[in-house]
């Protein structure tokens, strides 16, 4: 499918640049993600992975270059506008509504997409579709039993799950997850990755991830970001074999992962 602007991709970055003062953090990043692909973004600390997410989701405005979401240019749009166009993100540092219950957190996430917008002439209780969808989400992220627990009273892993729940609540088809498993134990991570796979079926997924085992297990494609550029973007096997990547970044990490996988 090719859209009006000539992009056949769910998300496309064209020579994207971002400077803070005189420092250029993103230096001409280009990337084209097809609909339904699962992409892991890897790279050393400070390579610009989170900045890239912040540019795509509208938190920062790019200095130059283009971001296309389903073929439409979204540079300079506000986060809520980009969200309404079908892109949703999670955060590295847990970012939920601490004084609202699990159910309320999720219900807030579904309201806009179901068209309730800013209405104050309807009772939440009567919005059967919103309530049903919130319950479904609660079931998907396995927090059924915590329905009325306030966000701030959940365990860390539960908060991370809720974070994912809010992110997918609006039904966006492009999902950005910023280090979803940060701070989790090995067993929690494994469980969490299968949860992510489950809830993002049929969606385009971009995730920043440090755990190489997770990366090779989850992603269809890997984008290697080094010094604000996309150094390589290919299948896990091809990236592993890529000499440039090994030289610039992966090295021992790949060897570790291979040892772990095989």
């Amino acid at each position, binding site marked *: 499918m090719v859209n009006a602007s000539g992009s056949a991709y769910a998300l496309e970055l064209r020579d994207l640049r971002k400077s803070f003062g005189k420092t250029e953090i993103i230096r001409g990043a280009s990337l084209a993600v097809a609909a339904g692909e699962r992409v892991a973004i890897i790279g050393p600390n400070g390579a610009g992975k989170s900045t890239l997410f912040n540019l795509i989701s509208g938190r920062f405005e790019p200095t130059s270059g283009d971001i296309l979401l389903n073929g439409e240019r979204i540079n300079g749009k506000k986060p809520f506008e980009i969200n309404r166009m079908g892109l949703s993100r999670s955060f590295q540092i847990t970012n939920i509504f601490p004084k609202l219950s699990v159910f309320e957190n999720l219900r807030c996430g579904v309201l*806009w997409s179901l068209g309730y917008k800013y209405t104050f002439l309807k009772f939440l209780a009567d919005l059967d579709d919103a309530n049903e969808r919130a319950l479904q989400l609660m079931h998907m992220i396995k927090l059924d039993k915590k329905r009325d627990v306030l966000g701030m009273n959940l365990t860390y892993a539960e908060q991370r799950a809720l974070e994912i729940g809010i992110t997918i609540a609006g039904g966006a088809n492009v999902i950005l997850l910023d280090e979803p498993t940060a701070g989790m134990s090995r067993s929690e991570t494994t469980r969490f990755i299968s949860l992510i796979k489950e809830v993002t079926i049929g969606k385009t997924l971009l995730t920043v991830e440090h755990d190489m085992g997770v990366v090779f297990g989850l992603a269809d494609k890997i984008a290697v970001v080094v010094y604000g550029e996309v150094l390589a973007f290919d299948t896990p096997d091809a990236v592993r074999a890529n000499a440039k990547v090994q030289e610039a970044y992966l090295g021992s990490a790949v060897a570790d992962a291979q040892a772990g996988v095989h």
Partner: protein
Amino acid sequence: MTTRFYEFKSFNLARWGIWSLFALVLIVVPLLFKSSLSVTMLSQMGIAIIACLSYNILLGQGGMLSFGHAVYTGLGSYMAIHALNAVAAGILPIPVSLVPLIGGFAGLGFALLLGFVTTRKSGTPFAMITLGMAELVFAMSLMFSEFFGGEAGVSSNRVSGQPFFGITFGPPLQVYYLIAAYTFVCVAAMYAFTRTPLGRILNAVRDNPERVEFIGYNTQRVRYMAFVISGFFAGVAGGLGSLLFEIVTAEVVGAGRSGAYLLFTFLGGATFFFGPILGAILMVLAFVLLSEFTKAWLLYLGLIFMFMVMYAPGGIASLVMMNLRVASFGKLRALWVSYLGLAVTALVVLLGAGAMIEMIYHLQLNAAVGDELNFMGIPLQASGLNSWVGSALVMLTGLGLFEVTRRQFKLQWGEIQTEIEKEIKSRETA
């Protein structure tokens, strides 16, 4: 599946019970407190309830700390009193009972205008801008004396127009019932607002504005809409005030009034819907009764406020709810002795501190009538060493005993909370 939502449905029995009770209280209360002072106070309470609840849409539900809420109640008052004069002059053909709505639309209009600027920011900048707006409007009240009436204010007469089924609003009781009707409708409407999509997203904006931007909402727009709704109810409260007092002076838009809304909404408890109702009742009691009782009433009020901010930041409502939780697990009985101890020792502190405060006020204001004063039936010498040492001793003893009881209480409270947590856990697994 639908049965699972039953508890959220807007209609259920317990809720009907509470609202019927509320209506009943509004109807019956003036039959129990019949004096003209109490009817006036009850009327003021109704108005204060609407004003504080409208303020809490900002503070408690939206996390917007406004220092200028009196702008909207006050301008509502002014528009309403001018409308009342227009009714009396036969220019405006509406019944007197609808005049408060004019105040409401004035509040809404000014909130639309001024709120557009204030709500562009949140947090500290928001607070600063509201403070600036309040000063601006107060300064204008001195500049435009045709509208604001200068020093004398604007006065009117609510017995205007045609009586409606013999209701002239001459007798204070008739005004009370009008105010009570408005109070009921406004409280119900503001409660309903908390149950709507906008009301819930407003809570989300309070909790984490950044995240709200990423679930499709423009936080500025959410704050603005809430601000305008709050302005409407504030204006209704102001309009009712015009009917009750039949005079409006510039102090209604003053910083003191704004401060009072903030203080008593907080004291009542901003985290629960009913908190500001308690705060509003306290506000009227403090302004009318406490000010009669002692000249130093603002000082006592300040002390209470500080004490609450430090020890019970959730206000009275949160204290009530915490104790209800303990009671629902049948553990409140164990706390009675501690509560009694806390109350008695706090009273001792208050007695000592109060004696000293009153002596200072006596020295500053009433020195001409002599050295002696009577404090709670105790004769004191305002410049006598004995009285001072005695009061200080009482206060210090009280403080010491209070601290001991407080620590004991804290331990006991902690134990009870862990017991409750355990019980909840065991219920979950059962």
